[in-house]
């Protein structure tokens, strides 16, 4: 093995220009592989952060009271009922600390939410009211990041509204509004923050208040209507939800139940990535195979000499497979280094600048790229190496 490695290395250094070009060719394939990995990974991260990123990964929602008994099975009314007067989770507050302590849980947001109306002067708008715990405003959606005026901090007497709603109601920061709930309870609040999420939807619909304000509005001195949980790994949600249910006795639901289409889009994108990366690998394999085939052809007389001197077929195979492996390794390392260098200017960890490619340097799959290239180069060299070993020494020497 060691001696075969020496010969393989010598063959590669004997024609430096040729080896250099070959390694460079492999490196370009690896570079493409890494660049695609970083781009596809970054793109997925971007899509996730722009969509799924702001939602809870696992949520505990109060079960609406049994509709069959109360409302004679009318689904429309049931819907109305659950969205206006939210059911209570009387025990949920006891579990906040417990859920928070679970490994893999990044943030927990206890909430009381329901429907209501914002009144400013003569203007009225229907809103969904979301009561968040002070200090945890950005636990789920990054409200801090979306605030365009004022602050995301919610205190007693403060309300955070969307830019569109502010425009609809001619509301300015610091002005006061009246907020009334479907329970008929009303309170005066000051606009302490205006947010803009961009997508239009929540900007007009959702108003955030403190948990305390929500308790007053919905006459809920205890309990919660919902607990939202963010995980460090959003794909762990399916495993985490039943775990939380078992622990608390409350029904926890993974985001994937409603977010299936996101997952589908992401997997389609990942498939495109696999496709492109496979092509990069196939290019490497073809390049290495053809180069080695040429090399074995050129060295036929030498192979004949080696066989005449008692080198086994296995030894000849090893010499050429090791050549392939060395090319793969060098090309892989060079390509990975080039890829890393090329990705350096892009910001790390999904902090994408608008207008630039959503590339994540951490998702370059460097190890995988090097490993697959090495494997591909070895596989590519097996066939040329085997045919080299089968060379008839007599005809090879006689050439």
């Amino acid at each position, binding site marked *: 093995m*060691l*001696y075969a490695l020496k010969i393989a290395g010598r063959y590669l250094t004997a024609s430096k220009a040729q080896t250099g070009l070959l390694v460079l060719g492999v490196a370009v394939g690896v570079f493409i592989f890494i660049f695609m990995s970083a781009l596809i990974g970054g793109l997925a991260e971007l899509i996730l952060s722009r969509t799924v990123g702001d939602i809870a990964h696992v949520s505990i929602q109060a079960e609406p009271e049994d509709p069959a008994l109360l409302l004679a099975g009318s689904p429309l009314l049931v819907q109305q009922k659950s969205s206006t007067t939210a059911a209570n989770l009387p025990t949920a507050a006891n579990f906040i600390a417990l859920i928070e302590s679970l490994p893999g849980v990044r943030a927990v947001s206890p909430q009381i939410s329901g429907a209501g109306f914002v009144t400013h002067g003569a203007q009225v708008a229907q809103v969904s009211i979301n009561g968040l715990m002070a200090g945890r405003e950005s636990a789920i959606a990054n409200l801090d990041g979306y605030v365009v005026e004022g602050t995301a901090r919610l205190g007693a007497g403060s309300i955070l509204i969307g830019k569109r709603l502010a425009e609809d109601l001619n509301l300015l920061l610091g002005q006061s509004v009246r907020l009334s709930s479907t329970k008929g309870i009303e309170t005066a609040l000051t606009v302490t923050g205006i947010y803009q999420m961009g997508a239009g939807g929540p900007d007009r619909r959702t108003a955030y208040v403190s948990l305390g304000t929500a308790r007053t509005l919905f006459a809920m001195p205890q309990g919660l209507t919902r607990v939202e949980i963010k995980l460090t790994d959003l794909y762990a949600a399916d495993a985490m939800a039943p775990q939380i249910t078992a622990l608390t006795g409350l029904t926890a639901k993974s985001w994937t139940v409603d977010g299936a289409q996101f997952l589908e889009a992401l997997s389609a994108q990942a498939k495109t990535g696999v496709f492109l990366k496979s092509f990069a690998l196939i290019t490497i394999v073809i390049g290495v195979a053809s180069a080695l085939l040429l090399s074995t052809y050129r060295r036929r007389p*030498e192979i004949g*000499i*080696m066989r005449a*001197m008692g080198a*086994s077929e296995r030894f000849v195979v090893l010499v050429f497979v090791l050549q392939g492996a060395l090319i793969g390794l060098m090309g892989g390392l060079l390509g990975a280094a080039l890829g890393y260098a090329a990705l350096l200017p892009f910001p790390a960890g999904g902090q994408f600048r608008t207008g630039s490619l959503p590339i994540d340097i951490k998702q370059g799959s460097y190890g995988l790229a090097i490993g697959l290239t090495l494997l591909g180069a070895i596989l590519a060299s097996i066939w040329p190496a085997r045919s080299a070993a089968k060379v008839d020494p*007599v005809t090879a020497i006689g050439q």
Partner: protein
Amino acid sequence: MSALVVVQDLVKTFGAGLTETPVLRGLNLTLQTGEVSALLGPSGSGKSTLLTILGTLMQPTSGAHQMLGCDLVRASDSARTAFRNQHIGFVFQFHNLLPDFTALENVIFPAAIRAGRETAVAQARGKDLLARMGLQDRIHFPTAHLSGGQKQRVAVARALMNRPELVLADEPTGNLDRASAGQVMELIAQINQDEGTTFLISTHDEKIAALCARQLVVVDGQVQG
């Protein structure tokens, strides 16, 4: 003297049908241990064919071939590969050396194949052999930088590396000028005396053949003499 190589009724036919070419036709030959023999015959008479069969690089169409008591016709391919590594040395006319390796690396190749690495013992013997070939100042030369005569002497040194019982040389001097050819033949005689190695040297040069103790001639696919 004991018989090192025994060949009986050896037949080698190339091709089949219209292209059928019988080259060796029931050839009998015995090489005694320590003999230096010349193998004569016109071009195309079958000298190289006989040498490659004796060197286990080619199987005869029929007949018996024994060396050191081993039946080399029946032996498996890997057994014959190992056998020639240990017991047979080759010197060819062309394409003799590995061009990307130094003289010493070429010489110790058979030993490195056997041991799996280049041992210090092999290096010492390799250097000694090169010195005996008058190449002590060419030990680390890339073989591409050597003259034709020097290359053939490196090839002889390599053929002797594993102390084989038999060295087969196929027109080793065919490519050399008279002075270099004489030098190579002298070295062969020297090694034969020092190590008792048996040589079979094909040539169509009567003067070279005259330097050998025994002259064999391939005629009509048989050996005479």
